[in-house]
């Protein structure tokens, strides 16, 4: 009897373990929670992780840091995390339990971090002061602003970089979305040149997982632009949008026709024709119609997570038809990510 109990217990533990491994975690990167005064004692922000589809959130690491984005080292199974924040880039090698600041006084207010798909040690960060690159997993950083410096472009907007796309079709080619349009580098960030949408504030730049020639840019006040030739030409695709300030664009991983977008007072917008037209809805979002980030589950495309401005996280399990509030009430969630 005792042996049976032991085997049953072992079975339960193994079952639990295998279930946990098959589950994906949701990461919510919180810029601020409620009122924020930079020089004051503020409420908890930073990284929150849910392992149960967004029912319960656990805060990990630093508590008051104006966090903006996260990148998870490929094949690390969530062990190696890069988090960007006001203090710079933080890195954890133990699933978020402890964090080290990887940058120094030269790097601040980081907005995005991207790991090169060909080389996990090659990290790019987007900041309001330009692009910085590390080739040693974040231990040292070099500014990579040749071609976008204000003295070259005539505007400080060209160094305000909010997005980085490493071209899947040509991994030496990197595109950045700046406050002064889209710039391109053909040598992994060594030199930039203006590519498109000069003078337009780019809030988000993404590449389709289905076709590397297809790119979308969400902008500050011009809606969405689409390119079908790798960025050479762009057209406005705003039909159906209710607001032209777009912060986030996400793809259905299984269906290249389905794309989601959202931004300032847009609600959630869905395109079923590859981003040509959109339908926007605020239904079920409890009035939190400004959305900063969308993540679509890689395996279950109907499972969608959104990070709102001031409303925390909402989740839909039916492709956006209905939404439930998932937590982090009052938070400005800058990035959501499903790994």
């Amino acid at each position: 009897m005792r042996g049976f109990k032991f085997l049953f217990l072992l079975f339960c533990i193994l079952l639990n373990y295998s279930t946990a491994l098959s589950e994906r975690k949701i990461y919510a990167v919180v810029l601020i929670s409620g009122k924020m005064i930079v020089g004051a004692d503020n409420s908890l922000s930073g990284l929150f992780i849910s392992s149960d589809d967004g029912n319960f959130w656990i805060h990990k690491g630093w508590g008051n840091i104006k966090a903006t984005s996260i990148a998870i080292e490929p094949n690390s199974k969530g062990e190696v995390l890069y988090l960007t924040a006001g203090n710079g880039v933080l890195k954890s090698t133990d699933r978020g339990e402890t964090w080290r600041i990887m940058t120094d006084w030269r790097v601040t207010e980081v907005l995005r971090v991207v790991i090169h798909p060909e080389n996990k040690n090659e990290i790019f960060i987007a900041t309001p002061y330009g692009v910085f690159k590390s080739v040693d997993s974040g231990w040292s950083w070099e500014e990579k602003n040749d071609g976008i410096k204000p003295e070259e472009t005539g505007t400080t907007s060209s160094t305000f970089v909010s997005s980085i796309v490493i071209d899947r079709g040509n991994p030496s080619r990197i595109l950045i979305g700046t406050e002064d349009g889209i710039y391109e580098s053909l040598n992994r960030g060594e030199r930039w040149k203006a590519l498109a949408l000069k003078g337009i504030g780019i809030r988000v730049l993404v590449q389709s997982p289905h076709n590397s020639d297809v790119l979308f840019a969400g902008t500050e006040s011009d809606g969405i632009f689409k390119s079908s030739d790798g960025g050479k030409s762009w057209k406005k695709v705003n039909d159906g949008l209710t607001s032209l300030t777009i912060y986030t664009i996400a793809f259905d991983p299984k269906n290249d026709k389905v794309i989601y977008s959202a931004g300032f007072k847009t609600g959630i917008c869905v395109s079923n024709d590859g981003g040509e037209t959109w339908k926007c809805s605020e239904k079920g979002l409890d009035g939190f119609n400004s959305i900063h980030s969308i993540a679509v589950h890689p395996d279950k495309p109907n499972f969608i997570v959104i990070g709102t401005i001031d409303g925390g996280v909402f989740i839909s399990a039916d492709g956006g038809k209905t939404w439930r509030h998932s937590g982090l009430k009052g938070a400005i969630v800058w990035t959501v990510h499903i790994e």
Partner: protein
Amino acid sequence: MRRVFLIFVFLIQSLNQSESFTSEFELRREKILKFYVDSVQLGKDKVDFFILTAKIKFSKEVKILLPYLDSLIQNPGIGDMFFAYQLIGLYLHCKENLPFEYRDKIKNVFKTRTIYRGDTENHWLMYYVAWYLISQEWENEIWSNLKTSSENFREASEYINYWVDGTTSFGQMEFDSPTYIITFVPPLCLLYDFAQDTLMKKMAQMMLEYILFDYAVEYLKGCYCGAHSRDYPELAVNPIQAQSQAIGYLYFGETEFDPRSMRKNAVIFCALSKFKLPDVIRYIATDRQFPYEHKERKRVRNVIRYGRERNPAVYKYTYMTRNYCVGSLQGGILQPIQQHSWDITFSNGLTIFSVHPYFSEIELGMFFPEEVKILPELVDRAHKVYRSPDKWTSSSPYERIFQYRGSLIVLYGLFEMVEGEKYRHVNIFIPRGVDRFEIDTVGWVIGKVENGYFGIRVLGGVYELKLEETCYRFRVYGDKICLIIEVGDSDEFGDFDRFREGLKSSEVDFDFDIFEVRYKGIRGFEMRFGYFGSRYVDGVEYKLNWGLFDGRFARSDLKSKVIEINYKGKKRVLNFNKLTIEETQAIQ
């Protein structure tokens, strides 16, 4: 009594400067410390790390203070960078009085509590001074950011050097702030007192002199006068209440210590410091025998988007007399939210100024990285009045200012406002406390404050006058508004009537179409000022091209990193290239 004795002993130990000013200075130090040690009551008054520092340092019964320290460590109620530098300051000042377990406890705080660096110049100075001293104190440790002592020490040293280099080459960004000077001087005092590296200690001393000179030359009986990068509305209308008053009291005198604002408590670190202000700077702060003009160049805080360059130049101009000071900067967006572009400050602390209550996503987006559409709402959660039509601090892209001596012209080109921007009006603040106040038949708003006189002429707009609790608020409406401000005093004009008659006979020619004004005022010179850039005095173009300091009391050229301070033939040269101080010639 025992406490007083201890303070006395402490002060005596620190005496190492010339006798004349030192004795007055020591009395003021003693008064400050005595207030916090004796008058602030535990359990009744709110305490902070500064007050605890003073109490622990001079107490024989440290035990009763420790629960308060525990409580503050647990729940400091202040931002991380403030917390870090205040706690290490308390530790270093009080180490000998702290039980060993508390020394370990404080060390452990820095090993476990993560510290947000903040996003302003003052935040970063406090943050890096804290890490410099923490990592100096405890070598071979790993801290909450998982960096080693040597890594944190090196980073902090590099940043402090970078900050000093930039400030002395191009001017400060968070310049001349009556509020935030209290976040620069106390951390520099800590650095001066506790940095073991002699060069860092010297640099801290020189930066203290640099910043305090910068204040001294615009100091009038407790007030930080003229234009400021950052000011709070309640202090803009009542400058004697600003935190700078406590710094002024300690180092310059000529005002009474008024500890009502908790934020002034940081002056405790200054009062405890061994740093002594050189006599020459104190003379400059207090000698108002002869009027003088003084020019400064500063930098705009980092413009991260929507600008042509990262740190455009700020040109300040100040005219100081013993009865009033009038100071200004050139106008435009030079700081977000809290800019104070010009004012008259009278020797009794009353002040007059105008504001275009501008707000916009663009202004905030220039300086903050969050999404511009949400920034006004985020800022209002903290500052409350950012979008108010009645606010008393603001920058405006439609404001242009030209000052020459006591004459000032302010132009507001509100016709340039774009769709979505609000408030086509300008507010003028005139305090209720003025002695006389009248509007003459020509249109001059004329008044008197003790021995100081002022006149304000409004052209190109219509105004309404509202009587408020603290002020006469003139709200001026128009597309092209011109304000002409004249300031004088009894020393220059004799009685008030003569000043008033002088205003009436002044010549004004306002060309509304090209938005240019020609004004020949009471001092006889003619100013010509156009909204689109023309500045002339007596027909000669007036260029904004001066160095970091340019005036009777100091000179410092752009990028020179050398400031030459002068007072009656005595020179004190701070050379940041060599980290040397040279003083020559005696005061005559």
